[in-house]
């Protein structure tokens, strides 16, 4: 299910082109009004672009004079507003997709119940949408989109309005269902982008300003928007009980993150540059990780200084940098507490 997107919507000044490989999840990031929802609408067939084309596995959905109706695209779109059908119960809402695809009443019901259980909303099955809280409605809408079993899943801010207690569970659910599925997810949250997406596309003012593998974009953002929330340190390796073993055999200690990896799994350790302390000598004390590195460059970042060494970055104040006499080529120790490092399954 690879997707080629190359579209233009003139009256919203949106002109976007990117591809999604088969089985890949792409996250779209960007400020309000950047054209994220517009892009999803066009791919889902809810909006006709002025020009360009959208192709799924080579089948042209839009463009070249062709037009495939939304229902025939098998692209489920979860919009920003949950828009549950007010006249159907929660269960009937979730069963709507399967029923529309011709699944029998009983099977559709069973699959709806299963998806409701997945989003932790089993007890809401008999309610009307008007009787749900905002976050509950959002969860049901997620279940409904997933139950439709689409070839391409389009999610527009699926995690907005979720309380922090459910969000991790849903993030894990999404990770599970997105694995091996072709999907496009709009999000404002860096962790969602990192954990759910293989690749990231950053939109600004209706144009793609940056795209690439999620790790690259998030660790070394080039666009100003991505830079504001990304710039993370990402260290890949295999999971150990208390951290990640790097290819060179050293272990980076951390605490298990949202999708906690089992020992031996592929994993990635994530920590913010601001959490990295820079020392001339390895210090004693609680921090578990002391990495000896050679500074590549120093770049000012607001009133702090970003110290780059290989893949890693540390943010320090100007005062500290002066005091320590940091300069490119200096050998230093990057120190980061294990509690600041979260280890996620890849």
């Amino acid at each position, binding site marked *: 299910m690879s997707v080629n997107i190359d579209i233009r919507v003139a009256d919203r000044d949106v002109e976007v082109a990117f591809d999604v490989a088969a089985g890949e999840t792409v996250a779209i990031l960007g400020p309000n009004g950047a054209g994220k929802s517009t892009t999803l609408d066009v791919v889902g067939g809810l909006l006709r672009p002025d020009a360009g084309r959208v192709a799924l596995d080579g089948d042209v959905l839009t463009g070249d004079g062709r037009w495939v109706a939304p229902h025939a695209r098998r692209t489920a779109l979860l919009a920003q507003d949950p828009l549950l059908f007010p006249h159907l119960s929660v269960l009937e809402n979730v069963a*709507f997709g399967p029923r*529309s695809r011709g699944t029998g009443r009983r099977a559709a019901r069973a699959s709806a119940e299963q998806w409701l259980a997945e989003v932790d909303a089993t007890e809401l099955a008999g309610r009307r949408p008007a009787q749900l809280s905002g976050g509950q409605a959002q969860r049901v809408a997620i279940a409904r989109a997933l139950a439709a079993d689409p070839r391409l899943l*389009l999610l527009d801010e699926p995690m907005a309005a979720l309380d922090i207690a459910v969000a991790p569970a849903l993030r894990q659910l999404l990770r599970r269902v997105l694995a091996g599925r072709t999907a496009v997810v709009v999000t404002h949250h860096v962790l969602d982008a990192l954990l759910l997406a293989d690749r990231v596309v950053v939109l600004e003012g209706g144009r793609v300003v940056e795209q690439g593998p999620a790790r690259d974009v998030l660790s070394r953002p080039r666009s100003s928007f991505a830079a504001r929330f990304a710039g993370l340190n990402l260290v890949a390796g295999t999971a150990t009980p208390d951290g990640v073993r790097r290819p060179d055999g050293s272990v980076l200690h951390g605490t298990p993150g949202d999708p906690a990896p089992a020992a031996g799994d592929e994993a990635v350790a994530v920590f913010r540059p601001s959490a990295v302390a820079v020392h001339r000598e390895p210090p004693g004390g609680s921090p578990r990780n002391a990495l000896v590195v050679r500074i590549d460059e120093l770049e000012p970042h607001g009133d702090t200084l970003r110290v780059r060494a290989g893949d890693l970055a540390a943010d320090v104040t100007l005062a500290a940098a002066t005091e320590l006499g940091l300069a490119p080529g200096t050998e230093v120790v990057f120190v980061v507490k294990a509690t600041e490092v979260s280890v996620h399954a890849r």
Partner: protein
Amino acid sequence: MSRSRHVGLPRWVYLPAALAGVFVVLPVASLATRIAWADFPGLVTSDAALSALDLSLRTSAASTLLCLVLGVPLAVVLARSEARWLGPARSLVLLPLVLPPVVGGIALLAAFGRKGLLGAQLEAWGIQIAFSTIAVVMAQTFVSLPFLVVSLEGALRTAGERYDVVAASLGAAPTTVLRRVTLPLVLPGLASGAVLAFARSLGEFGATVTFAGSLEGTTRTLPLLIYNLRVTDADAAVAMALLLVVVAVLVIGLVRPRGAL
């Protein structure tokens, strides 16, 4: 046990509303005071009355059905299509509304009568529509259709298309969207439209008498009977009219879905 969020109404609204209620109810109540109640049971259970009532209910039900079958698609097309030529088409649907019913009957004769546009063809096939029960149903459908179409189209436009879009993106084909989302969502409007059509059919007189004639058991519906009776026995006519009203209110009260008029 959902408790709806609720905003009060301005108090003054109740004054014109009550006035409107009185204006509608008072004449009917006055009518009831004119009835010789002693004769009432006998009058309304006479053969002629029962046969007319039976015919009225059957034809009105049939024409309401026909209005739904033809009118719902038309309303959907008018509300959802954006084609340019629909602007004028929309006005044409209003024609039977403004035509005095008797003229409507003449128009139906001009189309389907023996000497009408299609009539000769139909006659050749051995079909004679005018002056049959089918003609009654056609006359009622002709005058009632616009009521269904207009009120349903208003409801469809008010409801908008947001949920239709969601349903389509979940893989529902247009027919499924229509059946499971669009129409259920406008159920109050659809019910209002059907009620209007049924009521209009039940009270229909002019087009029926012109196009279908007035023959007991075949084409003489209750309004036609009332018209006839008025010539000979005004009291009986009034009693029969009251019967019509009661029956209509009962039927409508029984079939209307929750929350719809």
